[in-house]
């Protein structure tokens, strides 16, 4: 192993000291990253192969495969609004992925992001149309209300876990169903838009005050050379999502809270003897997860549209789990995974518009990615662990 020299104050450094003190050499780091990227690459490849197989089974023609690939490429990436769409659709997915990931870090499975953002969106919608205040106050309050809604809904499973030992997987899912009931009730009753047209699927709140709305990023993008249509669905929430991802990474890696979260999440039995209050950490992680979850649908409610609609609860929470798994719970990985899934959504529209293949073929590819990625990461983890052990033996 090549190591950097590092001077030490000791007159006689013990053997191996330089090795110990040295940081990991760049070559080794690059190799490590390469191995980490291997798993997603293999997983994407398998997803593509299975996508092709599915098209061949359904349509029995290679021509359709070429059509689909072409549509995914040209429409998915190079349609006039595609980049705006991808960034815009990635925004809720980043929040959802981060919400799942922060809980993951503490060893918790928050499958309740779906219900948490539903309640968050309701709360934000309510504050958005009910309150009148200047933007400087109204907008932050609306966003905070969204986060508070998520926190509220995450608090129930968190409390059940801490005080009653109930496993969060089942309780968060149950909370999703209860959230659905709350949503139906409030949107058809207390928060119903008096001017609403149409049936149950169109249920919505009254319009939100302009003071509670977040602006579109289209003017910004167009000012730097893009040519998006004015209605393209990308707002400043995208920037907020990136900031959230950066803060998440820093928190996990550089703060004591993140350190203790990781101890709890990777080896819960070591947490208490190290002075970490497991229950307090579980509460914090779950509530933080709920707070981030509360942001998921806000772009739809106070950015792209101007009201909360039943339609906005559309499975981001479950996709968020996939994003967190694919992104290995790292901030950068989550952003990348969200962009990928968002691209697949966009490409799906292209397939629907320009080919004879059902556009849902991309949802199969997403599912395959999820299933193969968990296996691929596990295989890579074992490979790395074996290599470490081998190196350990070689030293011994």
């Amino acid at each position, binding site marked *: 192993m090549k190591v950097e020299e590092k001077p030490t104050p000791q007159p006689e450094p013990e053997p191996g000291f330089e090795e110990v003190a040295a940081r990991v050499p760049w070559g080794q780091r690059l190799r490590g990253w390469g191995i980490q990227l291997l798993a997603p690459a293999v997983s994407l490849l398998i997803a593509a192969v299975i996508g092709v197989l599915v098209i061949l089974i359904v349509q029995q023609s290679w021509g359709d495969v070429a059509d689909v690939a072409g549509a995914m490429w040209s429409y998915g990436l190079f349609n006039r609004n595609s980049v705006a769409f991808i960034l815009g659709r990635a925004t809720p997915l980043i929040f959802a992925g981060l919400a799942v990931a922060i809980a993951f870090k503490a060893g918790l499975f928050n499958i309740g992001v779906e219900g948490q953002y539903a309640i968050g969106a309701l709360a934000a919608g309510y504050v958005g149309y009910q309150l009148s205040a200047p933007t400087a106050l109204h907008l932050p309050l609306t966003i905070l209300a969204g986060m508070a809604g998520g926190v509220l809904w995450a608090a129930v499973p968190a409390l059940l876990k801490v005080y009653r030992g109930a496993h969060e997987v089942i309780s968060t899912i149950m909370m999703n169903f209860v959230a659905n009931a709350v949503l139906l009730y409030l949107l058809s009753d207390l928060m119903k838009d008096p001017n609403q047209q149409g049936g149950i699927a169109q249920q919505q709140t009254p319009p939100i005050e302009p003071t509670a709305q977040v602006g579109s990023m289209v003017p910004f993008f167009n000012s730097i050379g893009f040519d998006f249509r004015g209605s393209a669905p990308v707002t400043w929430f995208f920037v907020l999502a990136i900031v959230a991802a950066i803060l998440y990474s820093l928190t996990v890696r550089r703060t004591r809270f993140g350190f203790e979260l990781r101890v709890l999440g*990777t080896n819960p039995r070591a947490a208490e*003897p190290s002075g970490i209050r497991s229950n307090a950490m579980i509460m914090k992680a779950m509530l933080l997860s709920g707070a981030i979850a509360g942001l998921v649908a806000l772009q739809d409610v106070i950015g792209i549209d101007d009201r909360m609609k039943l339609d906005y609860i559309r499975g981001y929470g479950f996709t968020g789990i996939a994003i967190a798994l694919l992104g290995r719970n790292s901030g950068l990985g989550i952003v990348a995974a969200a962009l990928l899934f968002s691209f697949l959504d966009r490409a799906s529209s292209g397939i629907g518009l320009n080919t004879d293949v059902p556009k849902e073929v991309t949802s199969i590819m997403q599912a395959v990615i999820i299933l193969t990625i968990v296996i691929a990461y596990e295989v890579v983890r074992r490979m790395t662990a074996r290599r470490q052990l081998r190196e350990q*033996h070689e030293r011994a």
Partner: protein
Amino acid sequence: MATEATEVTGDGPSEARRRSPAIECRGVTRRYAGVVANDQIDLEVAEGEIHALVGENGAGKSTLMKMLYGLEQPDEGEILVRGEPQVIDSPRKAIELRIGMVHQHFMLVDAFTVAENIVLGAEPDKGGGRLDLEEAERRVGELARGFGTPLDPHARVEDIGVGQQQRVEILKLLYRGADILILDEPTAVLVPQEVEELFDNMRQLKADGKTIIFIAHSLDEVLQVADRITVLRDGKVIDTVAAADTDTHQVAEMMVGRPVLLRRVEGKATPGGPMLQVKDVRVTAGGKEVLAGLDLDVRRSEIYGLAGVEGNGQAELVEALVGLTIPETGRVYLDDDELTRADVRTRRQAGLAYIPEDRHARGMVLQMLVSENSVLGVQERAPFSRRGLLDLKAIRRRAVELIRGFRVKAPSVTAPAYALSGGNQQKLVLGREFASKPKLLIAAHPTRGLDIGATQFVWQELVEARDEGVAVLLISSNLEEILALADRVGVIYDGRIVAQVRGSEATMSELGLYMTGARGGDEEPAA
């Protein structure tokens, strides 16, 4: 070498020599990812003998036994069973060859009954795959009657004692018709009196014509019961000798390759005033009082050795002292501060350090970095973190200090902790706790799993800490360790301290009597 040794042994084995040996290994080699665990092993175990296998940790005993039982396969060489070369590729195959193994950590299904445990994998069939439990219980009852004290086939395994569990393990082998029995450190979990019983059982098995290979811990025990002894070192067979022709010194020397014996480590300091005081602590778990009004004090500059059979309240006492459980009654003081209800962090900040019994599970996070592991438990202190932010440089610096000071072999401080070998992980935990500048150090079985050299090192560190004024509470089931280090020895039995003696005056047999409850409990603790 093995052959020569056989000729000098007594009549049993030499008579057996005329037939093929029960087990013969020829040039057996096993490598793990670059390290040679077994190197050209030649071993011959005669039929009807008790053959002991001794060696330091990592000498290759377990690997060899695993190969005999089909849990691992040799890379080179061959294994002959009763004269026939065999490929033992699974426990199933070993069972077919009538080879059975009792693992050090029992392989029992706690929720099953004794009978279910014994017949599992070879169940009597009532027809059509139906389990014939009555037949199973009948057969188990029969087997148990022919072998030592009675055993209830209907009892759940989790409800019976350790000694009985071990007999269930042995019955499992007999039920399968095994006549070559491998016992992996069978005495490690037993008190001296139970060890006697086990040895009686082993002699009875031998009289019934069984062959026993046993991996041993204590050399005295080996000489008591074994016919022949094979010594392993660094994966090689050093020699096979007849027990009658050797003594502990000679065997120990063969094991470590130099004349070393553990002896009492004397320090310079004399104990001062009380540092830890425990008064009338009670803890109930599962409806049973596991700590029954326990009193204890440990002084400055003192090593207090807590002896006792495992499961008499040691684990619960440690948890109550560290702050993992809060006792129902009683008080705990550290340096005159009451900490009875304080949480772990408060206690650590007040000067407590803790080396958990299960270091890999409770003292480390193997997937996290070596550097991160070297501040685990003190992560909130400056300079490792300030205002909630970690100082990664300071953390790395601490890791380097520990690695140097405690001779930890680590590839780099930014490697994950699982890249360290077990012994080095343990040294890292010990070093970390010593380095936290404690007033009180609670060390639970600090040398378990370490070889002789590392054990000596840890003992030296404990004595140095004591000499610097630290109060050390040493919990150990290894009486040799207690006797070597403790200034004072307390015996815990049934959740109470039943005896207290000066370390220099304690003897193994006396402590053994207290540990089994054969004596004590009513008398006031002395010393």
